[in-house]
Every structure is written in structure tokens, then in C-alpha cells.
């Protein structure tokens, strides 16, 4: 009869962390709880690519292209790589797609679990640190080619502004100001954002700047997908403000993407920035 009773580890007080609970109760469910055989696993699974994020007065926007690649093959053309982490934050992922999605699920559960156990949400820095811990525990796999590099953004209710955090594979956590991007096309996207970003962007302008940046990334990086006009596949965009996070409706992104494309018909390199 004791078998059917909830195990003692469920009743044990102490941790409010779901990942810590899994570590003690069923480590096999953790992405980091597996041991890989020797070798390089990078070519076995699809990779997600470019994520961009930028702040605007009153919030933060994150956008991701829709392509996943396996070597020279396009593994998926409508993959989603930006996810809400909780009500006031979202996470975008570049790197090994399957592992990244699993890590996002763990992170989402981690935040919700803390909120339910403690009756309050983690601070913005607390969330960013938890994500760093999850990435750090994945270092072994990263060294075998299964790296996951997230970009984390959210609205900090205490500070009253949007914030962006980037990570490296060892779990290093770096706060970014204004804008940032990760993934294979990130160099081109960041270059574009340098020229397009202004501090007084409105929400719509900020979304447009990010769609422009993703276009530039897709222009020069084969692993980043541009807007797919025939299939009407456009970037996933999340906006987070003091009212919470929300995915920008597909129709709105389509409209912005269409206007970006119309501009590129005249000037394929995108809007020209002033020289001085």
C-alpha cells in the first residue's frame, strides 16, 4: 500500500526549484541528466538560427526567423524559436533545436513552479540566473556539439523597463543594453540593428526594425530564413510590456514584412542610415 502513497521526496520541504526537484527525484528527465557516447553530435539534429531582441520605451520585443537547418538541408521552414517563458518574459533559442525546445520547456516549468510554490514570481534577475544555471548544466553536451544559446528578454516590473540577457554555453550571463542578437545570422542582424535602432522607437517601429534585421541576416546567412512569400511564413515576434507578454498576431507581422519587402524592392540593402 505504501507504493501508491506520494513518495517522500514530494513531501520534503526545501527547494522551490523544479529542476532541483527533478535532479533529486528523476534525473533522467533532465536534459543534462543524460550521458552521451564519445563523438560529435552536431550533425545529427537540426539547428535553429537567428534571434533578435530590442527594447523600446515601455517594453521589449523579441523576434526569431523560422528556419531550422541540418548541414546544407533546410530541416524545417516554419519552426518557432521564440517562446513565452512566463507572463513577463520570453526566451528565444539558437543552437541544437530539439535540446533547446526541451530546455525551454524546463525553464517555463521552472518559473511557473516557483511562482506556485512561493506564491510570487521570481525577479527578472532571478529568472535570468535560473536560465544561466540550466545552460551551465548542459555544458557537457555543448562540448559534443549540442550547444544551446538562448536570448532572454522580459519586462522588469521593479525597474519599469524591458531588459535583455544573452548567454554563452558555459552559463555566462550578460545583460545587453538596447538590442542584441544570437545565432548564425546574428552578426548581420546586429550590424543592421546598429544602423536602425533608436532609443525612441515605438512598439511598431521596434518590430519593424527587428524584421529588417532578420531580413539582413537572411540576406547574408544561408541558415537564416527570410520571409516566405509563397507560403506566407513570417518571423515569430513577441512583445512584452507592463501589461504582460503577447505574440504579435500573424497578420500584423505579415503587414510589416510586406512593407519591409516593398522598401527592399527599391533598395535591396534596406533603408539607408544618415552618414553623420
Amino acid at each position, binding site marked *: *500500500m505504501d507504493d*501508491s502513497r506520494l513518495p517522500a521526496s*514530494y*513531501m520534503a520541504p526545501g527547494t522551490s526549484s523544479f529542476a532541483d526537484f527533478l535532479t533529486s527525484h528523476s534525473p533522467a*528527465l533532465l536534459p543534462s541528466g543524460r550521458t552521451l557516447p564519445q563523438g560529435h553530435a552536431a550533425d545529427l539534429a537540426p539547428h535553429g538560427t537567428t534571434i533578435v531582441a530590442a527594447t523600446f520605451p515601455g517594453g521589449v520585443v523579441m523576434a526569431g526567423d523560422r528556419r531550422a537547418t541540418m548541414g546544407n538541408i533546410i530541416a524545417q521552414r516554419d519552426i518557432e524559436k521564440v517562446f513565452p517563458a512566463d507572463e513577463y518574459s520570453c526566451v528565444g533559442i539558437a543552437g541544437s533545436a530539439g535540446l533547446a525546445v526541451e530546455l525551454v520547456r524546463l525553464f517555463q516549468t521552472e518559473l511557473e513552479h516557483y511562482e*506556485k510554490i512561493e506564491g510570487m514570481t521570481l525577479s527578472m534577475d532571478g529568472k535570468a540566473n535560473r536560465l544561466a544555471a540550466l545552460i551551465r548544466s548542459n555544458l557537457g553536451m555543448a562540448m559534443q556539439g549540442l550547444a544551446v544559446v538562448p536570448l532572454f528578454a522580459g519586462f522588469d516590473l521593479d525597474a519599469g523597463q524591458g531588459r535583455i540577457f544573452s548567454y554563452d554555453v558555459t552559463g555566462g550571463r550578460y545583460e545587453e543594453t538596447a538590442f542584441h542578437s544570437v545565432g548564425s545570422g546574428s552578426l548581420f542582424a546586429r550590424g543592421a540593428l546598429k544602423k536602425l535602432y533608436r532609443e525612441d522607437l515605438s512598439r511598431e517601429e521596434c518590430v519593424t526594425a527587428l524584421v529588417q534585421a532578420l531580413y539582413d541576416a537572411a540576406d547574408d546567412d544561408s541558415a537564416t530564413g527570410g520571409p516566405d512569400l509563397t507560403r506566407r511564413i513570417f518571423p515569430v515576434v513577441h512583445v512584452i510590456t507592463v501589461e504582460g507578454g503577447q505574440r504579435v498576431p500573424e497578420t500584423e507581422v505579415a503587414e510589416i514584412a510586406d512593407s519591409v519587402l516593398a522598401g527592399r524592392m527599391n533598395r535591396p540593402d534596406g533603408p539607408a542610415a544618415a552618414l553623420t
Partner: protein
Amino acid sequence: MSMPFYVSPEQLMKDRADFARKGIARGRSVVAVQYADGILFASENPSQALHKVSEIYDRIAFAAVGRYNEFENLRIAGVRLADMRGYAYDRRDVTGRGLANAYAQTLGTIFSSGGEKPYEVEIFVAEIGDSAVDDQIYRLTYQGQVTDEHQYAVMGGADEVVAAYLHEHYTENASLSDALHVAVAALGRSSEDNGSTGDRVIPASDLEVAVLDRTRTQPRKFSRLMPARLEALLGDRGPTTPAPTAPPAASEAEDQSDTPPAQGSQTGQDGGGDGPV
């Protein structure tokens, strides 16, 4: 040569049951009421931090009376079980029935094992479906019994008095405001057993109210109604309602049947998790 002292199994179980029942009856009642958009929970609980009603998962909520440390243990176990299942399978695979079964097994085992003190708790596990007919309220008792409740359910404190009021006044498919009025009035009735004859009006700041609301757009349907919202919903509680900001003494002339306000704070939770709440 001492004779082993014989206690019949019937007596042993009865003693344990009496012990648990007494602990549960000492606290204040929690009511769960089905309304048009879901299930409403209400309880008199001056503490803003120590909750009797909590979220377990998307469509599942937990309410408890009895010893705080014991039901808090069960609540955390429930959150862990639900999150674990949702993570290992899918969010849709987390069900109230599964959780109620796990609680029933746990409480039953603890109650009938000789070595452990029986839990002095009673629990509701409630789950909302896509329509009112799919809503479920499970009642779990200290000895692990599960019963399926319909329309409304009461546990702890003077539960019979509260249930009698709900029996008279409950209507199906009520609006949130109507359901809240009935639930709060029923809780106010619970003082009848200690001599006073009228209904108490519990100030909004002493109420803990939460709903599982299927009209919420988020997947997580649980939400707490904060005092400001409660006051807006309960605004027309009639002449017995004390002014929200006035000190308790201000209401004395309004209705002599009001129980003294001091009573409301006597059994407030002390944070130590020791006494029944």
C-alpha cells in the same frame, strides 16, 4: 509480567478519527461554489501570505482546512506531481482525478499506519472543464476518503451551518458576483453556533477568494480576487456592511446583530504553522 494493553482496532481508528476531526473543526470554513464560468473558493483568512486556496495547475486548484504545515506539505507535493506530469507528458495529461487519487492514497496510508499521527486536514481538489457540467470538486478527508461534490461544498469550522445556508440560497449558473455574495454570506453565517443569531459581515480584507475561471484567455485559469476587486463585487452588501476604511467600531450602530469585530482576528494565522487555520 505485564499484560499487553489491548485496544480494539475499532476503538483505535475511532480515536484517530476523533483526533483529526477535532483539529479540523477548530479552524474556519472554506467553501467551494460552482458558478457559470467555473468554481469559486472563499474563506475567511486575514492573512495575505498564508493561503488556504492555491493554484495547482492550469485548470486545477487546491483548498484546505486544518493544520497549516500539513496541508502546505500536501499542496507542495501536488504542485510537484502536477508539474512533473505536465513536463514528462503534456499539460493536458494533468488531471484533478489523478491528483485526488494520489492525495487519497497518501492520506489513507498515513491514517491507517500506526506510527504516524493522522493528518488533521480536509482538502478540496477542484478542476474545471470546458463547460459547467465538466467541472469537478473532490473532497478528501483525513482518512483518505474521496467524494465527488456538486454545486457547492463546505469543509472545516462550522461546516453544517454554512452548508445549510448554501443549501437554501445556492442557484445554478450564477454570475461571479452572485456566487460570491452567496459564498461570503454563508461564511458569515458560521458564527451562529456560538450563540449569536444574525449574520456577520466579513470585511473584504479578511476574505481569501479565488476562482478557476474558464473565460480567462491564458491556459492558467486560476486567479485570486484581491480586496479591491472584492469590494467592487460585494459593494452592495446592505446596511450591515462596515465602511471599508472605517475602523470596526464605526459599524456598531448599523446593526446590533454584528458579532464583535475582535472575533475575526482571534484565530488569525500566526505564521508558525502550528494551529489549525
